């Protein structure tokens, strides 16, 4: 118990002392998390909308692929990305291996199927009369889609929260393609793993608490936004 209590004390001290390394890691994690969530949701939510509403050949197969991708092991994803981004890989010329962009790319690929699958479920949950009503009142395709999305906005906000949560908590891909380089690609999760293995439990715990705090802040922000539009 002393060990745990000591860990918490050190964690709080680091948090309130404004330790540059701790906050540097947190800011990098936040930046990567936000960018990859925006890109993944920007692509995934419209994809989920199409999967949920547009009948096309192979739609069922596409849904199966997206749902399967939800369970894709992040370490394997990191491995494949490593192959693509390494000097001899097809994307090696980009020079992204061991950069934060590589971590963000991995996070986008991780969160994209989450956003698409959950958005599809959210849109399918909207009463079909909403779409028919928008159409019969003269709305075109885009306005109808926007109206349906507005009805599903609480569920779509949950999609964004979930995607962000997965992205900031991800470690397998970040470790493989990011390399956990101090000051460059060290994120909260890779740092927690490193400092725990080095026996610096207090620092690892401090970073873990920040991770929780980030998730909490994003949730609160989204709930505040949701609160502005009641049923």
């Amino acid at each position: 118990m002393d060990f745990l209590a000591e860990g918490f004390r050190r964690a709080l001290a680091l948090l309130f002392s404004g330790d540059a390394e701790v906050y540097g890691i947190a800011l990098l994690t936040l930046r990567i998390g936000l960018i990859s969530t925006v890109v993944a949701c920007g692509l995934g939510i419209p994809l989920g909308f199409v999967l949920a509403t547009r009948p096309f050949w192979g739609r069922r197969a596409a849904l199966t692929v997206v749902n399967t991708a939800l369970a894709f092991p992040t370490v394997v994803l990191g491995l494949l990305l490593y192959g693509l981004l390494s000097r001899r890989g097809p994307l090696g010329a980009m020079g992204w291996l061991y950069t934060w962009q590589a971590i963000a790319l991995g996070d986008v690929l991780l969160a994209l199927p989450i956003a698409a699958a959950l958005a599809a479920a959210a849109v399918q949950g909207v009463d079909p009369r909403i779409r028919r009503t928008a159409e019969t009142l003269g709305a075109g395709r885009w306005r109808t889609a926007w109206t349906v999305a507005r009805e599903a906005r609480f569920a779509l906000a949950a999609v964004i929260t979930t995607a962000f949560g997965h992205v900031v908590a991800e470690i397998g891909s970040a470790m493989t393609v990011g390399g956990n380089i101090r000051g460059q690609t060290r994120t909260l999760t890779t740092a927690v793993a490193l400092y725990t293995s080095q026996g610096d439990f207090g620092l690892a715990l401090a970073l873990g608490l920040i991770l929780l705090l980030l998730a909490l802040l994003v949730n609160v922000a989204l709930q505040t936004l949701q609160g502005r539009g009641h049923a």
Partner: protein
Amino acid sequence: MLELVGVRHEYDGRVVLDLERFAVPPGAALAVVGPNGSGKSTLLRLLALLERPTVGRVVLDGAVVTPGGVARRRVTLVEQRPILFRATVRENLAFGLQVRGIRRTEVNRRIENVAARLAITPLLGRRRHELSDGEVQRVAVARALAVEPDVLLLDEPASSADRAAALTLYGALAEERARRPLAVCLASHQLEDAYRWADDVRALADGRLSPVTPENLFRVDLVAAERGDLKRACVGTIEIAAVTEKTGPAILAVPPTDIFVSREPLASSARNTFQGRVTGLTRRRAGDGAVHVTADVGVELVAVVTEEALHDLALAPGSPVVFSFKASAVRVF
């Protein structure tokens, strides 16, 4: 003129609508009546260009129109159980007007106008969860009227409304039709409303226009009687005997002019004799001398009698009455 031409519509291979031609003329007040599952809602959805018919075409003013085209802005449907958007009533009324790019001042003017006509002005600031089913229905009709369509399609518009609200609704429709050319086609199971309000009443049964009058039309399951050629069908709490070769699912119609009306059971050859009470008396066409007597005899049936017969029988709402008709008078199809 909005028309369905040579239309057959299927769901999962099952034909739900089969119409050679169905037209809604400009400015018409048209009612489509029929039992549940007769295809009324499908008919309205095809007319509203929300679905494409499996076979056939939808024609508006001589031109073939399809879902997704601009023609949809001229036809608006209010569904049987309408839904409001997650917004205030005012925002709901504004939706169709904003879609059409109408200026804000005109949007507000039309909202105030239509809300006053449908007596929903006090509701304008409310949201959908703060409204009763009847209020939602009136708001939905107001939302449809606000966009001033050429054709308004209404699926059971008074199903959630009380009598006063239904009268307000029909009054608003009449006022709108007096104000500008508007064709209204409503699907209803309330025959009295249909006859009172519409210029033209058409019956739909099993997806086809019915050759008989729409009163006393029932979806039944015909079973053979123990003796003879008669078939029997349970309708409400009564059992109707019919002469037919058909068994199983069928549409059964009892022409109102074939029902004998009396105060006491008659000794007659009629296989169907039911006692009940008069629930309504309606004179649908001024001067034709016919009175429609509606009675609850275990199920609601309508019979037609002359003014003279009505006087002789001294029938009034609440009076005991006997309806009799022959098994051979029952139409089965």
